């Protein structure tokens, strides 16, 4: 069976800046893959490459067996960018309905369903400029989910969320995985990254380690993921 996402030998430069220096990864269908690393390490750049929003200088990406970029596959893909990227003058419902519409979907039941998932049903008709940062982020996630994608790219989906809401998001990610949805997400929080099936620890555009959380902790000889990252980062220099 094809991997949901596979990337080989990805290199990306911005002018003199070498941002990604040879990334390889495989994400199995129905699993959650976490890209974990400090700010500026290249996580968002990698996500945009996997989506076909920008082109790698070297290397290939395939998504669900199709070489990227490929417009047709995008209807099976949901993307939540790191910045909210929504229309602040519109309501939560209007934003979600719009992103459903650009997928060619007009389905108010689906819109209500994702608003429930992000627990915004009660505020759905308020404009986003009256929302807190966390609420805007939840709206953004709803927009990425509304068309029922088989593959989700979530760039720091839990930033600005309180611990309760973060836990409920992870529960939902797990439920999506059981339904066969594949998730690639980024985070800079070690503790929540434990929840992913596989992790890529990224720093300065290369993987310090790649594998299941348990494999990474064991290989580094540290007690937990946070310490593992520190140990591996020190080894990198």
């Amino acid at each position, binding site marked *: 069976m094809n991997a949901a996402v596979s990337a080989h030998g990805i290199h990306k430069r911005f002018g003199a800046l070498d941002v990604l220096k040879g990334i390889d990864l495989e994400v199995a269908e129905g699993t959650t893959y976490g890209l974990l690393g400090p700010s500026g390490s290249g996580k968002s750049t990698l996500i945009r490459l996997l989506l076909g929003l920008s082109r790698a200088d070297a290397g290939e990406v395939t998504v669900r067996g199709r070489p990227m970029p490929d417009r047709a596959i995008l209807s099976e893909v949901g993307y939540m960018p790191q910045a909210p990227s929504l*229309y602040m003058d519109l309501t939560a419902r209007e934003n979600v309905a719009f992103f459903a519409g*650009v997928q060619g979907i*007009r389905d108010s039941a689906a819109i209500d369903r994702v608003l429930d998932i992000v627990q915004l049903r009660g505020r759905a008709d308020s404009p986003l400029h009256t929302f807190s940062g966390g609420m805007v982020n939840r709206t953004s996630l709803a927009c990425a989910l509304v068309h029922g994608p088989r593959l989700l790219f979530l760039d720091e989906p839990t930033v600005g969320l309180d611990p309760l809401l973060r836990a409920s998001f992870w529960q939902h990610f797990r439920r999506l995985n059981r339904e066969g949805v594949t998730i690639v997400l980024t985070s800079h929080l070690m503790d929540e990254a434990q929840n992913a099936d596989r992790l890529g620890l990224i720093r300065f555009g290369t993987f310090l380690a790649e594998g299941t959380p348990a494999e990474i902790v064991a290989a580094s000889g540290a007690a937990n993921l946070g310490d593992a990252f520190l140990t591996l980062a020190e080894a990198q220099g």
Partner: protein
Amino acid sequence: MNLRRTLAVARRIVQQFRRDPRTIAMVIVVPIVMMALIGYLLRSVDPERTVAISADVPTDTAGIAEAINAGGRVEAVVLPREEALKQLRGGEIQAVLLMDPGPGGEDALTLVLEGTDPTSARVLDQAVRQAFAQKLLWAVTVGTNIGGEAGEGPQLQVSYLFGGPEYENADFFAPALIGFFAFFFIFLLTAVSFLRERTGGTLERLMAAPIRRGELVAGYILGFGLFALLQAAGVVLVAIYGLRIHYAGSIGWVFLVVFALSLLAVSLGIFLSAFARTELQAIQFIPIVLVPQALLSGIIWPVSSLPRALEVTARLLPLTHAIDALRAVMLKGHGFGDGDVLWPWLTVVAFAVAFVALAATTFRRESA
């Protein structure tokens, strides 16, 4: 082409408008007020201009005064010389016709003009010359002397190929203003709105959805085109029922031209938004893109009267052609069966299509 995706974009633009009454006012109300104001100003009566004929002029002073008054634009009175000069200096009258020593030293008929307002001076000069020419004509053709009655003499018949004597400046400007407003406001709004789409990350989000670039541009054209048509409807209604402009032919064609213009304005706005990083920079398109077109497109000065280089430039500006088409529709009563509507309209559409193509190159997922 997926209509649903295009309509989603158009609907969103309408929703954003609805939340922004100030912008609605700018697009719909401001052009109506400006149209009404400009129309009113163009209508306002000539200022009063008076020429005094010095009583010592050795000819039929009353007859000349009558001839000048018959012209209608200037009032003529007969006054004693000193009184006339006093009133001229005091600004109560604007010209005096009197006897003064000429270059040869002998007294000659002289027109003294107040002179600070060149338009006034020209009008007075012409009115007086015309009165003299008329009296001379009577003298020759009717055989009377220069003292003949005003209103006598041969009658000139006047006929109009288009319009008629009732046509006024306001009628000439109205079509051009309808075109200019549609272009100006829709261009500016699209540029700012698409700039927000670029800088706010929503464009990137759209590029991660299966919407085609053409569908996105078409959605913008539909959404903003709707407001362009509403605006044109408002301006046309004010012009026809408020200002009671004279027009010939079908107003329906006006909307077809306005739609072509909004096509152009939207695609140009999307294209140029790629060259601005902030909304302030988008506002800088007004002097770069809009003012040259406002000056050169024939709104005020007919394109054919421009110096050669400027005339060529004007022909390269799409707004020139749109205004040509609008004037042919409204002043000549022509329609799409006539070359002077069809060709300019097609030219505008061709410009628009070119800009749609250019606009679509300014955003891409790095794929087809």
